[in-house]
């Protein structure tokens, strides 16, 4: 698949729209999800992903011996998202989206749990956050994460371990098995 991605990228750069479509079908949504999880904003995520595609088509920096196209793409999105976050932190005028749907009780509960996880992940150190998102949500291998984040394998493992430990601590109340109502202590 990595070799196939490389071929598709080469053809897309030469102007083959079908190859570009295939590449987008394969990686477009995961890249958007990753950007969304890093930035917390649909607008920002869309801008980052669009810029990512423009970058890979016009800058001839990808080399097959440096890793997979997937790792390369996630690396670009990561850099662009962090750049965006730096700008947002400076200007601080873009609201971070939250899931504030109101509906049936179960939906509300699920939304609250989802929001709690989002907050806990967002509170991680940036390097731990990106490693965790890439590993847990986008199923990148440790090698691909190392490629995307430009660090060695040991650093990736350490960041993942620390991220998981922090989350385990912060989200402990949500991981406890539910007790039946009326069974608690008064």
């Amino acid at each position, binding site marked *: 698949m990595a070799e196939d991605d490389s071929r598709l990228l080469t053809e897309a750069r030469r102007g083959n729209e079908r190859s570009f479509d295939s590449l987008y079908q394969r990686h477009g949504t995961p890249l958007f999800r990753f950007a969304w999880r890093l930035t917390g904003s649909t607008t920002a995520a869309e801008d980052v992903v669009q810029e990512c595609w423009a970058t890979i088509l016009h800058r001839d920096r990808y080399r097959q011996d440096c890793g997979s196209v997937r790792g390369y793409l996630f690396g670009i999105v990561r850099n662009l998202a962090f750049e965006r976050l730096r700008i947002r932190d400076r200007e601080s005028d873009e609201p971070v989206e939250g899931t504030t749907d109101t509906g049936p009780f179960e939906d509300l509960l699920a939304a609250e749990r989802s929001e709690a996880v989002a907050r806990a992940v967002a509170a991680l150190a940036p390097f731990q956050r990106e490693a965790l998102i890439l590993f847990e949500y986008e199923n990148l291998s440790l090698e691909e994460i190392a490629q995307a984040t430009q660090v060695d394998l040991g650093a990736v493992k350490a960041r993942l371990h620390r991220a998981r430990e922090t989350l385990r601590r912060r*989200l402990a109340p949500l991981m406890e098995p539910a007790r039946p109502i009326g069974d608690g202590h008064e």
Partner: protein
Amino acid sequence: MNEKDPLRALLHEWEVPEPSAAFAARIRAGYRASRRPAFWERLWSFRVSIPVPVLAAAVLLIVAGFWLVRRSVPAQNPIPAAPAGGGYMTRLEAAGFQPLPDGEIRVIRSGGKP
């Protein structure tokens, strides 16, 4: 990091919106606008800019060339059109005609008998 890890299950409760169809269209439009066209597409839209005097001279040369070529070809007699009404027409070609060597010449006066 197994599948039954409660942390992992909880992490996957974090919901993320899907990118809209309009976004995919925007990405494709951006690609089309920025891509390097294929060879045949570049050939199809290839443009040449020529100054008007050069174009006029080129047109004059072409016209003069046609005229010279046409003049060097011998003119042929046009074939007469068939008479209206569907009658017969005889076309006599006298080129290469030679009278018989011992032919007797008879002069026939106008209105006379042979």
